[in-house]
């Protein structure tokens, strides 16, 4: 599955580069030095997250193929107050294109609009903002569908139904909110399943593990947990193992992708 994402983002990179090349030939290029700006910037949602690293690999590979260099940056936490200064500086560094995973649908709206206004081709990857009209492209999976697929996977493993729980990261992140929504709708529509709601792990595996252990303590009947991203999934799996439960199935996001 990772491979598929790799391919997708390679394609995104190609798209961004193509976009900027066109612009360059028109003479109103984002690159300060005519059509020779061969730099694209990639701003992750958070540093050191495998998801974004994988994405970066795809971007790098495709960029190299087309003779571009990629500058990768990311905030220490998945936090718009930390990501905004980075985006501002990236804009100042004047890349041909900016691939960015916004950390908040509202807070990153204005900074990214300004980037677009500065003549940089903005591509939203994975997450999005309230009004992405300024972006030349937006790539994300069908997150609502993904949530539903996760529920279907649990249903397949546990056809008799039971209690299900969602471990998400933080509210306000477009992708995971959509996954939760998809899962929630599917779970509520099925009377044999009891939807216990969402817990927020703040994108921290240790917190996710604690949440899961406590939840299993309270509700030993949990048959499935949907973890909405990688860190949530790692933590949830740890929690399930700690609790010694063999009945619960963790369904992390990379399974459904």
């Amino acid at each position, binding site marked *: 599955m990772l491979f598929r994402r790799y391919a997708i983002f390679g394609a995104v990179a190609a798209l961004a580069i193509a976009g900027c090349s066109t612009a360059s030939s028109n003479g109103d290029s984002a690159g300060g030095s005519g059509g020779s700006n061969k730099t694209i910037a990639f701003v992750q949602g958070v540093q050191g997250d495998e998801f974004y690293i994988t994405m970066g690999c795809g971007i790098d590979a495709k960029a190299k193929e087309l003779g571009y260099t990629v500058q990768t940056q990311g905030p220490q936490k998945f936090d718009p107050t930390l990501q905004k*200064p980075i985006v501002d500086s990236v804009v100042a560094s004047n890349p041909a294109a900016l691939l960015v995973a916004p950390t908040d649908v509202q807070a990153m709206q204005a900074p990214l609009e300004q980037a677009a206004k500065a003549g940089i081709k903005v591509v939203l990857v994975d997450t999005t903002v309230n009004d992405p009209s300024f972006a030349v492209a937006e790539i994300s999976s069908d997150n609502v569908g993904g949530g539903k697929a996760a529920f279907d996977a649990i249903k397949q493993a546990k056809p008799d139904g039971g209690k299900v729980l969602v471990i998400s990261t933080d509210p306000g992140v477009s992708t995971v909110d959509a996954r939760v929504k998809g899962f929630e709708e599917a779970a509520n529509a099925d009377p044999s399943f009891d939807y216990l709601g969402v817990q927020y792990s703040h994108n921290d595996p240790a917190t996710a593990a604690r949440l899961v252990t406590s939840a299993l303590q309270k509700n030993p009947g949990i048959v499935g947990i949907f973890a909405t991203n990688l860190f949530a999934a790692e933590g949830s799996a740890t929690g399930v193992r700690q609790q010694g439960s063999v009945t619960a199935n963790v369904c992390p996001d990379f399974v459904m992708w």
Partner: protein
Amino acid sequence: MSQSTMQTDVTVEIGQETLAGRLRSMQSIWILGVLIVIVAIFGVLEPTRFLAYNNLMNIAQNASIWAVIAVGMTYVIITSGIDLSVGSVLVFSSVISAKVMEMMGDKGWPTVAVGTLLALVSGGLWGVLNGWLVAKAKVPALIVTLGTLSIALGAAQIITSGLDIRSAPVVLQDSVGYGRVAGVPVISLIALFVVILGGIGLHMTRFGRYTFAIGSNELAARRVGIGVDRKLIEIYALCGLLAGFAGQLSLAQYGTTTIAGQSLTNLNVIAAVVIGGTSIFGGQGSMLGSMVGLFIPAVLLSGFVITGVSPFWQTVAVGAILIAAVFVDQQRRAAAARGGRAAVKARRAAAPASPGVAEYK
């Protein structure tokens, strides 16, 4: 003692005053030098991009919210206290403000004024709670504010069910968050105003004097009749109040309550204040230093991004500068203490009969 001796004595003192003044302000000066060097290096590496007016203004804009918090934090740390709760208090205050502004429906300036007032009040109340627990209940500040860090954030999440309120008045966002006056971000002008007021209060008023006195020797402050408990509550209240104000500014800048954000605000602000030469042992610090300390990480971040240095190195560099700043400060102070006494001895030895030492009769 003859009249002429007294005259000479006074002259000697005046001569040393400027020297002592220079010695004392050296940490801010030294750290300002570091900042200038950093700016110069990036300026040479990326003259057109890094030194672009717009980039410098962006750096200022991004440091503005932290600057407001750093003002209060400087006071708190000078009392040898600490306030870890500022990020959560910021979020809580912005939630209260956003909630009420949303309920008022109207998106004009009166609504913004009410929201600002509420943000100040709710921040101030958290500060009073912190101060009361530190001063009266005698719970260590680290523990108190670690507790309120959790409680304030939890309370914000309870009020909003964990969902950010994203309906900050457009007028607030457009004019305060992203507006510019004469090319300077409005939010930075507001922060500058707060910083100047805070600096005057710290360095020129009795309130500031007592802040230093409490941090320098709390018992001595009590013995001369300073109401130390009350002062501590006021200082933590000020810090909370400014965190609340920062909450309103954050609403202006991000248009959302950033419940999941502000996670490193407290540590970043504390690091800035300490880099700027404010001693965590209390009694020493300056507002100018805190501001320079705030801009070093901000400039590094921008410079590293523009020059394309891996983000991991930024974290390393800021941490190293924090330690280096405190280390150099310690060395410098130790040297000043030694040199100071050595210099006095040297003067005595060199001029045993001078009027300046005539008092040792």
